[in-house]
C-alpha cells in the first residue's frame, strides 16, 4: 500500500506537469502557489473562488494526497486512521478551476517572474505565493541527518513518516523505551511534540503499559506545559520523563546505527527514537532568495516578503511576528494574502488584515485542551491582540466538549482548504 502510493506519485508528477503549464499565458493575471498545504491550498482556493475566473491560479504540489500534520498525533494514538487525515486536490480543480500541477518547484527567477519545475517546465507568474512548510536544519541534532530518518523518524511531515513511527511503536518490546528529541524554538506546532507524547502514552498504556517515554528537550518551558504535565500525571503517572535543559536536554547526540541517545553524557538505549530537529523555511523559499537566516521575513499587512513585493510567503516558512507556526495560522494568513493579491490584480476591495489561531491538543480520550489568540497587522509585525488558554483542573464535560470542538475545527479547516 505504501509502496504503491509512492510509485503512483512518481509516475504522475512528470506526465502531468508539462501540458498543464501551457494553460497559463492568455492575458489573465497569473498567480502561482507553491505548496498545497494549510497555507497554499487555502490561498489557491480563495483566490480562484473569489475572483470567479478573473485570475489564473496554478498550484504546484508534488503529492497527490496531502496528509495533515494536524491530527497526525491522533493517528498515532489510534483515534484516527491514516485515511482520515489524507486529502486530495480534486475539489480545487473541479470546483474552483485551480490548475493543480503535481511537481516540485526547484527554482524561482524573480527577474523573469517564473518558477521552474523538476519536470523541466517553467511557469510564469504575476504574483507568487510560497507556502512550502518546513525543512530541517542540518546538524542540529549531532549524529542525525535525513538519511537517518528511517531508523529515527521525525514524523514532522505527515504521511509515510507517521506510518513508520506508528509501526515502530507497535513493534516496541515489552517495557521498551521511546525517546523523543524535542526541537528548539521556533518550530511548527508548539504543542505538537507534547500532544504526540500524550498520544504515544495513550497507545502504550493499552498495549505495552510498562514501556517508558523519555523527552530530551532543549527548552526550559513549552506550550500548554502545565496542562500537559497535569494530564500526564493523571492519565499516565510514571510513564513519562521530561529531561529539560537542567537535565542536559540541550546537549543531545544520537547514533542511529546503535539506536542510542546520549543526553549530556548519559547514554540511553532506545527502542524507538523520534528525532524532531531544528527547523527552517522549506528550501524553495531560500532558493527564491526571500529568506533572511532560517525564515522568510514578511509584511504583516498582506504577507508579501520584505525582499520582493510580488512574492508572498505564508505559514510555517514565514517570519511574521507573534503567530505560532500552525495550520490554523497558515490558513488565516492565506485569506488575508488572498484578499490582498486579488485586490492588487483585479482591483477588488481590500479589507483590513485580521488573523487568528487556536490550537487544540488531545491528552487522553475526551481530554482536550486549547490555546488561542487574535492578531492584527502593525508596521513591524503580526502582533497579538488577545488570547486564552484552557485551565488546569477543568471538569471532564468541558474537556470532552473541547475535544469535540477540535473535531469540528478539523472538518472545517480541511473543507476550507480542499472543498
Amino acid at each position, binding site marked *: 500500500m505504501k509502496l504503491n502510493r509512492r510509485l503512483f506519485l512518481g509516475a504522475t508528477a512528470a506526465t502531468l506537469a508539462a501540458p498543464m503549464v501551457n494553460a497559463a499565458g492568455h492575458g489573465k493575471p497569473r498567480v502561482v502557489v507553491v505548496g498545497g498545504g494549510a497555507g497554499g491550498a487555502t490561498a489557491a482556493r480563495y483566490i480562484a473562488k473569489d475572483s470567479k475566473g478573473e485570475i489564473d491560479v496554478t498550484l504546484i504540489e508534488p503529492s497527490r494526497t496531502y496528509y495533515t500534520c494536524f491530527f497526525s498525533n491522533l493517528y498515532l494514538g489510534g483515534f484516527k486512521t491514516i485515511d482520515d487525515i489524507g486529502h486530495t486536490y480534486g475539489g480545487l480543480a473541479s470546483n474552483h478551476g485551480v490548475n493543480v500541477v503535481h511537481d516540485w518547484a526547484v527554482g524561482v527567477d524573480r527577474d523573469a517572474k517564473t518558477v521552474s519545475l523538476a519536470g523541466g517546465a517553467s511557469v510564469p507568474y504575476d504574483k507568487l505565493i510560497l507556502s512550502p512548510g518546513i525543512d530541517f536544519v542540518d546538524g542540529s541534532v549531532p549524529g542525525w541527518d535525513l538519511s537517518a530518518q528511517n531508523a529515527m523518524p521525525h514524523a514532522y511531515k505527515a504521511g509515510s513518516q507517521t506510518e513508520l513511527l506508528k509501526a515502530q511503536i507497535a513493534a516496541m518490546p515489552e517495557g521498551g523505551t521511546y525517546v523523543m528529541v524535542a526541537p528548539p524554538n521556533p518550530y511548527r506546532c508548539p504543542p505538537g511534540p507534547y500532544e504526540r507524547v500524550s498520544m504515544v502514552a495513550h497507545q502504550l498504556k493499552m498495549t505495552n503499559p510498562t514501556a517508558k517515554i523519555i523527552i530530551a528537550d532543549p527548552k526550559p518551558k513549552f506550550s500548554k506545559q502545565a496542562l500537559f504535565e497535569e494530564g500526564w500525571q493523571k492519565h499516565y503517572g510514571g510513564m513519562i520523563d521530561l529531561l529539560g535543559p537542567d537535565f542536559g536536554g540541550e546537549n543531545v547526540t544520537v547514533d542511529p546505527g546503535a539506536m542510542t541517545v546520549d543526553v549530556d553524557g548519559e547514554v540511553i538505549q532506545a527502542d524507538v527514537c523520534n528525532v524532531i530537529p531544528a527547523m527552517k523555511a522549506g528550501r524553495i523559499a531560500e532558493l527564491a532568495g526571500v529568506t533572511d537566516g532560517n525564515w522568510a521575513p514578511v509584511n504583516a499587512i498582506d504577507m508579501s516578503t520584505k525582499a520582493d513585493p510580488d512574492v508572498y510567503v505564508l505559514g510555517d516558512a514565514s517570519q511574521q511576528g507573534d503567530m505560532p507556526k500552525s495550520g490554523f495560522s497558515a490558513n488565516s494568513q492565506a485569506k488575508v494574502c488572498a484578499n490582498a493579491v486579488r485586490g492588487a490584480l483585479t482591483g477588488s476591495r481590500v479589507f483590513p488584515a*485580521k488573523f487568528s489561531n487556536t490550537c487544540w491538543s488531545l491528552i487522553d480520550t475526551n481530554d482536550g485542551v486549547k490555546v488561542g489568540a487574535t492578531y492584527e497587522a502593525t508596521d513591524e509585525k503580526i502582533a497579538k491582540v488577545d488570547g486564552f488558554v484552557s485551565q488546569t483542573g477543568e471538569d471532564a464535560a468541558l474537556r470532552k466538549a473541547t475535544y469535540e*470542538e477540535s473535531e469540528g475545527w478539523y472538518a472545517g479547516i480541511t473543507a476550507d482548504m480542499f472543498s
Partner: protein
Amino acid sequence: MRAVLIPILLALAVPAQAAEDLGDAENGAKIFKSQCRTCHMVGEGARNRVGPQLNGLFGRAAGGLEGFKYSKSLARAGADGLEWHFDTLNAYIDNPKVFASGTRMNYRGLKDAGQRADLLAYLRIYSDDPANIPEADPTAVGTDHTVAPEILAIVGDAEYGEYLASECLTCHKADGADDGIPSVTNWPAEDFVVAMHAYKDKIRPHPVMQMMAGRLNNEEIAALAAYFETLED
C-alpha cells in the same frame, strides 16, 4: 402568568385522551423553555428564528415551511415524503443528527422518552387549532441578550462580511454541518447580531467566541450577519 395559562389551555385545546397518549404538556412547556426556545418560537406571533417557528407543526412536511431556509438534508427528507407526526418527531428529537444527518438543528437530542412525550404534548397544542392560540407571553422570545435598537438597525456590508466570514469558516462549516462546532449558516441576521454581542459582552460563555467577537465592531458584526443570512450551501 404562563403557569396559570397552561392548565386552562390544556383543558380547552387538548382532548383528555390525546393528552394522556402524548404526555404532560405543562412539563413540556418547561422543557421547551429550557431546551428549544433559544432557536424556536411557538404560539401567537411566532416567527422563524435560527429554527423554524413551530405553529402547525404536526402534519407539516419536513422542510416545508414557506420562507425558512432549511438544510439540504431536511428539504430532501420532505421531498421524499417525510411528515412531522408524533412518531417522526419523537425519533427526530431523540437525536436530530442520526435521524437526518446534515440537518442544521444544533441539538444533541432529548434522550428521555417521557420528556419527549411531554414536549410533544406541549407542541401539539399549537397544531390542534392554531386559531385558538392564546396570547403569547412577551418574554417567551428567547433572546439571551439585549442589543440597542440602533445597533440592530445597522445594515451590514455583505461583501465585507464575506471576507470577515473566511475567518469563521476555519471552524464553522459553510454547508451548515456541525460536529462539535455549531452551524451559523443562514441564521437570521438579528439572531446573529444578538449572539455575537452576547459573546462580545462576555455573557455567552465560550472563550474562543468571546475573543473573536471581542475585536469585531458593530459594523463588522452586522456585515457578518448579512453575509451568513444569505450564504448558499
